């Protein structure tokens, strides 16, 4: 049904949509009504990422959780530095503030513990490999890129399941490579979403995440939508514009946990919304305010494997950490 050619993937969308509709309606009938949640999910504020001076006053930074080593990597692109926090939320190390990494755009950590840094250079971009001290030990060069990625200029980088996922947010192109940078698969999101040419400027990806199964999640603010793209190229999307709970204002960060729950940050509404694997709205939390549990323009999100959600905010509120607990469904 699906093809390796991303340009042709959307031609199968009708099959997908009809199947999805049947599944969606099936869920409704099975549940015997609008069951708001088969399993309740609870959210509680935990703490903010801090150092010995208190909360680190970040504004909209990039996050990556190294689940194997229980460390949280935070990139402040404006300051150009990278700080590492332990699982208790305390800063334990920092590097990159000497300018040695050029203009850092994103950061991730591979299985072996090496840190990969995506940097903008005078001539394009580079993927730097750093050791645990943040010292550059090498570069990853992309190879075998197809012609449609000839002007590829990635701004996001995520390492997952021994694969490197690179996203060009403006061109809306994804390249998936092996750990040595050799191209394996790619997706043209503009084509998949059938963005008309006169609307392609200004239509771009905001939030980007890769879950444990290799599904690529992303948001497109001007479409008021969030999407999940499977490794095989199956695309599903959801989202409705609006201001009421569960609706999308200016969506940004996105993440998904092992149960398939999807977390979507909304800068405008200052909330993080939670949807189940069927895109059914479960709840939202945050709201603009100055209580620790409030959120001001939440942006990038990341999850660890232990039920903690990390939320980057504005107004120097840094990164709020929330505990997510999902109760077993009522039988």
């Amino acid at each position: 049904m699906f093809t390796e050619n991303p340009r042709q993937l959307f031609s199968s969308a009708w099959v997908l949509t009809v199947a999805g509709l049947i599944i969606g309606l099936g869920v409704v009938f099975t549940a015997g009504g609008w069951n708001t949640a088969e399993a309740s999910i609870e959210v509680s504020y935990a703490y903010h990422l801090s150092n010995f001076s208190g909360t680190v006053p970040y504004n909209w930074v990039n996050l990556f959780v190294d689940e194997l080593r229980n460390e949280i990597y935070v990139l402040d692109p404006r300051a150009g530095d990278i700080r590492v926090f332990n699982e208790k939320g305390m800063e334990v190390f920092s590097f990159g503030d000497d300018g040695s990494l050029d203009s850092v755009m994103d950061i991730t950590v591979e299985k072996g513990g090496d840190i990969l840094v995506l940097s903008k250079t005078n001539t394009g971009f580079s993927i730097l490999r750093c050791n645990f001290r943040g010292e550059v030990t090498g570069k990853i060069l992309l190879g075998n890129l197809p012609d449609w990625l000839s002007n590829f200029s990635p701004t996001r980088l995520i390492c997952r399941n021994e694969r490197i996922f690179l996203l060009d947010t403006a061109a809306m192109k994804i390249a998936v490579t092996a750990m040595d940078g050799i191209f394996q698969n790619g997706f043209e999101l503009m084509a998949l979403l059938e963005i008309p040419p006169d609307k392609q400027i200004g239509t771009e990806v905001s939030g980007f995440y890769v879950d444990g199964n290799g599904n690529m999640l992303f948001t497109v603010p001007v479409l008021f939508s969030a999407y999940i793209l499977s490794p095989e190229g199956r695309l599903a999307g959801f989202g409705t514009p609006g201001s009421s709970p569960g609706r999308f204002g200016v969506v940004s960060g996105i993440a998904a946990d092992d149960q398939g729950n999807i977390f979507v940050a909304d800068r405008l509404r200052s909330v993080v919304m939670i949807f189940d694997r069927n895109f059914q709205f479960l709840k939202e939390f945050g709201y603009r305010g100055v209580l620790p549990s409030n959120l001001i323009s939440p942006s990038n999100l990341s999850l660890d494997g232990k039920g903690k959600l990390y939320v980057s905010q504005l107004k120097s509120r840094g990164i709020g950490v929330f505990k997510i607990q999902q109760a077993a469904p009522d039988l």
Partner: protein
Amino acid sequence: MKAMKLSVFAMAAMLAIFGISSTSHALHDGGVARCEACHTMHNSQGNAGMTVIAGHEPGGRLTKGSDPSSTCLNCHQGGGNGYHVFSTDGSNLTPGGDFYWLTKTFSWVSRGTTQYSTGESHGHSVVAADFGLAADATLTTAPGGTYNAGSLGCTSCHDPHGNKNGAGAIEGSGSYGVAGPTRGNFRLLGDIGYQAGSSVTFTSQVPVARSFSSNAETNANHADYGQGMSEWCRNCHGNFSGSLRHPAGNDAHLSNDSIADHYNAYVASGNLTGTQATAYLALVPFERGTADATTLSTTSTVGPNGTSNVMCLTCHRAHASAFPDAGRWYFTATFLSTQSHPLATDTGVTGNDVLNSYYNRDMTATFGAYQRSLCNKCHLQD
């Protein structure tokens, strides 16, 4: 009730599934759109007040940000050009410039004295508390006017409601040269009668210009200006015209003193081999002296003629630049390649600041090692 729930969810499921193929639609695609995009009508979300502690309430007009500019930047913060105006690395190479430069102060030592190019001098210091952008502490009122620096924000110049001469709804953006009475203003700029804040009401109409729909500004991909920009700037900077000031405006024609001829011939310091067909330099734009936006071309490389005129934006950027006075180049440098700041050796320089400062131009490669001030594009004194 169950039926209603069913229908709601069914509709949501259809939206979720069929919503994959979509047409992009910004919150205000050329004009005013959904009120809720920017305002919280009842100061309430999720049955809880957004206001928690006095002083941290939503903006004074129930905006969803702490102030108007914070509300705008919820969408317009970012890099990669397009509709973004405030990046984290100076990479928005748009005609207006990147507010990133407001956050960058560069310093260097010259003859034993530390010199500074301060962030607040790099552009219009819009106040956006959520983003850490504060009022200009040096120029507390608009140069040549009375506008209070503490009130300066995106809505000081742009009318988010997209009114055109106080008329009603518009059907689309007025930024791309499409004619019609129901088209909006260029870049949603405030029109005659616009109350811009700080007790300033605009008396000059919006300029005639045309935007380009692409990424970085280049000599062949740029905003093309018709007329009226300087007159519009004087809504706030009214006393920046008249005697003993550099002329700018619809009557400041480049035919005076053969300036158009100079512009067209000038390629670089010492190189006067240019021709009008390829003379356009985006670092020194001009107005073509027309009120018809449909005749403007954002890809034109043609230099000026006798009816063209100099404008404020010939030398300055509307948002911000890497240089003092929001200059398009470093005004006081003798040689731009080696004496502009930021230089790679300056304190405060990060990433690609130097390259971004001149819009991705290597100044030595483009103009030569001894290129002098771009004032000479018109005045030929080098």
